[in-house]
């Protein structure tokens, strides 16, 4: 039996670039950074004082204080992005989605802000004053459950916590659900809000973050010789995945197709990528095979491209290993140069970027790429967007733990 084709019918996002798909896309193709000094808390003695924060979003105003109090910020962002995506797909967020709709959400660290707050209160005021909502805010599946409750999603649900690959895996597992006929619609996405004091401090301790505090918007410089780490960012992106027949039967707009998914594990080191990006090579290969495509078909790769010395070098090696001489021809870019690293929300956001790139025929640039690194010598679309008629895009996501999730999208 042939697999059912999976289409994307709706997009929603809230991230450091903007609080809508159109605003985000506009910034992406114009090479505008969403990174700035941290404003949501006093950075005290943190060695990093900037991040990609969501701006102009008041959860109390959006959902009412009584509801907003029950969720961590990662949950607020999830509901906001999911509502946008449902509306964009022509579905009514006021109606229950029912049992023919599933949800797969990715997050790296769940309600980490709620965790930090609850520990602070415990230390200061003791056990009897711990927020009774702490558990339901901090559990990694909180957003999955809250989005399901809000929109009445009664089909299967999964929460994926493969660190920075989480929402790439979420989109991939959602694709599988639809291909296999389990449900017709899946709300697939990711969320993260780890722009919090302890979390930034802890990532800084392992030297994962850029410390270019004086130039926040230029700090994230994937593939540049002077790159010095990633930039923490927060946000949520949601895609509505649907069987092609379901979308056509209700005359829904079709952005494009999810055609390939590859998931592998390095089984090497908890943070460092395997030498030469071996696990990444296998994930890209599996995704292409799943799509019945070859490297020659790929028009654009949205790289993981975190701006850490190790990732960008190994991802480059991995692309060369799989693509051979074609590696030097394929257009690549890292949109993390503008958003920062959305961690568990990155895969969903970058899936959206791939779909919009295919649809609009524009490749967003890698900004802040000015100094050539001999170990990163591919075409990363430096600093300016490129117009190109394309049909196939690939999105790479790799996470701490050695998790690799690769997706392939098609315009037709």
């Amino acid at each position, binding site marked *: 039996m042939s697999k059912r084709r999976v289409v994307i019918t709706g997009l929603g996002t809230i991230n450091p670039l903007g609080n809508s798909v159109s605003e985000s896309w506009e910034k992406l193709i114009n090479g505008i950074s969403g990174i700035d000094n941290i404003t949501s808390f006093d950075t005290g003695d943190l060695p990093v004082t900037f991040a990609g924060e969501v701006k102009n979003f008041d959860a109390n105003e959006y959902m009412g204080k*009584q509801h907003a109090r029950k969720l961590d910020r990662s949950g607020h962002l999830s509901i906001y992005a999911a509502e946008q995506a449902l509306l964009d797909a022509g579905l009514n967020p006021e109606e229950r989605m029912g049992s023919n709709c599933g949800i797969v959400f990715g997050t790296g660290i769940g309600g980490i802000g709620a965790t930090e707050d609850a520990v602070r209160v415990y230390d200061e005021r003791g056990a*009897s004053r711990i*927020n009774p909502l702490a558990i339901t805010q901090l559990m990694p599946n909180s957003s999955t459950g809250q989005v399901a409750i809000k929109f009445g999603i009664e089909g299967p649900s999964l929460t994926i916590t493969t660190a920075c690959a989480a929402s790439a895996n979420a989109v991939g597992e959602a694709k599988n659900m639809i291909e296999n006929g389990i449900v017709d619609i899946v709300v697939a996405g990711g969320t993260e809000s780890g722009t919090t004091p302890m979390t930034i401090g802890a990532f800084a301790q392992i030297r994962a973050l850029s410390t270019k505090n004086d130039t926040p918007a230029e700090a994230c410089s994937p593939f540049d010789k002077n790159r010095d780490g990633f930039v923490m960012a927060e946000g949520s992106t949601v895609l509505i995945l649907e069987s092609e027949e379901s979308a056509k039967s209700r005359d829904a707009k079709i952005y494009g197709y999810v055609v390939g998914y590859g998931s592998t594990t390095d089984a090497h080191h908890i943070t460092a990528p395997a030498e030469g990006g071996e696990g990444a090579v296998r994930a890209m290969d599996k995704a292409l095979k799943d799509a019945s495509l070859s490297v020659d078909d790929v028009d654009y790769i949205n790289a993981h491209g975190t701006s850490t010395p190790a990732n960008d070098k190994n991802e480059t090696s991995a692309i060369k290993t799989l693509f051979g001489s074609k590696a030097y021809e394929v257009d690549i870019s890292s949109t993390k140069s503008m958003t920062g690293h959305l961690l568990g929300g990155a895969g969903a956001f970058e899936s959206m970027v791939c779909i919009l790139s295919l649809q609009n025929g524009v490749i967003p640039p890698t900004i802040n790429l000015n100094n050539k690194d001999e170990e990163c010598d591919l075409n990363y679309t430096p600093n300016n967007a490129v117009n190109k008629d394309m049909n196939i895009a690939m999105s790479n996501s790799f996470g701490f733990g050695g998790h690799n999730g690769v997706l392939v999208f098609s315009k037709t």
Partner: protein
Amino acid sequence: METNEVFDKVKGLFVEDLGIDESKVTMEAKLEEDLEIDSLGIVEVVMAFEDEFDIEIDDEELADVSTVGEAVKLLHSKI
């Protein structure tokens, strides 16, 4: 403290701290049905009462409390 003063303080907590619509907070309002305070929320409410009135409330004492008025009565008896 008079009953109406206790009610005013309770109303203030519900509106300011919990984000409940002011017009819904009456003596007759049912905590769960009318104010949408669920089983998790009730723990928050108790914590807020304890802090505001500097008292301790045992779980058993809550058995007969289902409306704002009953909460006010309980608090009034403990202050």
